[in-house]
């Protein structure tokens, strides 16, 4: 399942990095609903969670600096494969897609449990996992829970909102974490889970060649039994939380957009509209 690249340097800091990547409905497209009011995830095109690109970029930079391997892990329906190809094109070495109808409806506790079981499986295959990197949050659920919860299931330290990984040495990783009004510098023993906030990483844009190479990279699909998941702890029934209602958020905005290459006319129209609507700037 796991390929080891012999070209990499054999130093002891070589890192086995797992990146959790969530395939999400394309944030640029409006959500689709089923007649019962729940989200129709299956009919929505899935892309890689935009925030996860920063985590992938951070992982790739570490691999480039220290050697090692970057393995992507996703839990999603089978049609998520295209989204995973995006991460592979960026440079992730290989992917594991955990896909099983019994996982549908999992909340964050159940999802983090399932993902932690995949990490455990990788751990025993590889002998060690040094870092588990996540995005800061997903664009569809925006919870930021999965990172700290996966860490809890694995019994590992975690740091959320990591702006930058400053240093990896002697079995420790030093990170800069965003907080209100500034930052913290934290030293954590590896293995550790980090959620990457992104502001210091610019995700690379794959070339056509990268895209083609990515087609040959391996995506292994596993089901719940393959990673010894206790199915009573996942899915709708294994999840402590229940969504009782969903509704479209009321956005009561006027949405008047002015585009005019003639700047005077643009301002005229805008100010006239404000007057019409009775809005006073002063």
């Amino acid at each position, binding site marked *: 399942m796991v390929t080891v690249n012999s070209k990499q340097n054999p130093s002891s800091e070589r890192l086995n990095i797992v990146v959790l990547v969530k395939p999400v409905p394309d944030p640029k497209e409006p*959500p689709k609903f089923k007649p019962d009011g729940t989200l129709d995830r299956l009919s929505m095109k899935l892309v890689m969670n935009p925030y996860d690109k920063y985590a992938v970029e951070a992982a790739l930079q570490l691999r480039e600096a220290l050697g090692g391997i970057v393995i992507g892990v996703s839990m999603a329906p089978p049609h998520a494969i295209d989204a995973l190809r995006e991460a592979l094109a960026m440079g992730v070495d290989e992917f594991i897609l955990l896909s099983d109808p019994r996982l549908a409806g999992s909340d*964050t506790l159940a999802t983090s449990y399932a993902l932690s079981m995949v990490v455990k499986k990788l751990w025993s295959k590889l002998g060690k996992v040094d870092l588990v990197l996540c995005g800061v949050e997903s*664009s*569809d*659920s*925006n*919870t*930021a*829970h999965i*990172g*700290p*919860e996966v860490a809890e*299931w694995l019994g590992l*330290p*975690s*740091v*959320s*909102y990591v702006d930058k990984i400053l240093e990896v040495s002697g079995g420790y990783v*030093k990170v800069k*974490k*965003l*907080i*209100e*009004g*500034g*930052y*913290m*510098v*934290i*030293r*954590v*023993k590896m293995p550790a889970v980090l959620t990457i906030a992104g502001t210091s990483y610019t995700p690379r844009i794959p070339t056509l060649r990268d895209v083609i190479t990515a087609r040959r990279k391996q995506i292994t699909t596993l089901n719940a039994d393959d990673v010894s998941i206790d199915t009573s702890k996942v899915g709708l029934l294994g999840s*402590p*939380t*229940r*969504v*009782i*209602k*969903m*509704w*479209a*958020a009321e*956005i009561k*905005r006027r*949405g*008047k*957009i*002015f*585009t*005019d290459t003639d*700047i*005077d006319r*643009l*301002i005229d129209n*805008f*100010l006239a*509209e404000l007057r019409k609507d009775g*809005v006073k*700037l*002063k």
Partner: protein
Amino acid sequence: MSKIFVYAEVVEEGIAEPSLELIGRARELADKHGFSVSAMLVGFGVRKLADELIYRGASEVHVVDNEVLSKYNLLFYTRAIVEVVENEKPDIFLFPATTTGRELAPRVAARLGTGITADCTAIEIGDYVDPITGKKYEKLLYQIRPTFGGTIMAAIVTPNHRPQMATVRPGVYSVPPRDTSRSGRIKEWTIDFSEEDVGCLEVLEVKRERRKVDLRSAKIIVSGGRGARPEGFKLIRELAELLGGEVGASRAAVDAGWISYDHQVGLTGQTVKPDIYIAVGISGAIQHVVGMKDSKIIIAINKDPEAPIFRIADYGLVGDLFVIIPKLIERLKVAKS
């Protein structure tokens, strides 16, 4: 009586405002539905802050005051909170949706094996009938939050696991008045941290600027982002002055050093609700939007017609801010004279 617990986050100035807001909201819900309100205070030298929590509405404060907690340490804090929860068995546990709350609460929830909802914009108490079993639950915590980048709202419950947990967005509830005639019980806990892995996670440095400017009472805010650059901020200041408003900023502008943190709007800045919010060269990332989306009127100036900020704007001016703002200033000055 069923208990509502509120995590009392401590910052240099004392109890963090978002925690006081939650004490206030918990008190309202408790009075209406028959719960008690307890605060959970963790840190070193924090015992002296317990009274403040009582004055704001807690009837009980659980204090874990220990030298190993002098710097925020996620693992020690989780340990302390979980031990108190296992003994006290609260029904509901609320955390502020600050950067601290949003990493601490899910760890506590996972260790307790319970559910949690992130970044709620409202919390209520209500009943629930399980559609599968037909079982009726009374007085559950309704955890209400936007999802899908803010386009959808969801109401969530945790019927069978305790505590029912949520983080709640700062600024949605107001800080309750301080009533020094209130009294309550303070319970101190001694927790043995010797089993914990001491060097596992260590805060080496904290840099936190204190906020000196309060944007919350401003009627007009003109905010600049990465697109404004230092030169743009000159224009933004000028426009703000002309309109009698304050200057705001995105985190990108603050991180670039163009303006101080005092002016930052958003998840890790201030939550503002002016009559008019003018976003200049700001893309509209969710972390910025949560801090300003309740402004009465939103005006956006951005050269990218696809910028997400236009989706929440009342008026959007597509174009170069360096052309638009000087013109706008010119026109407003003319109108004035």
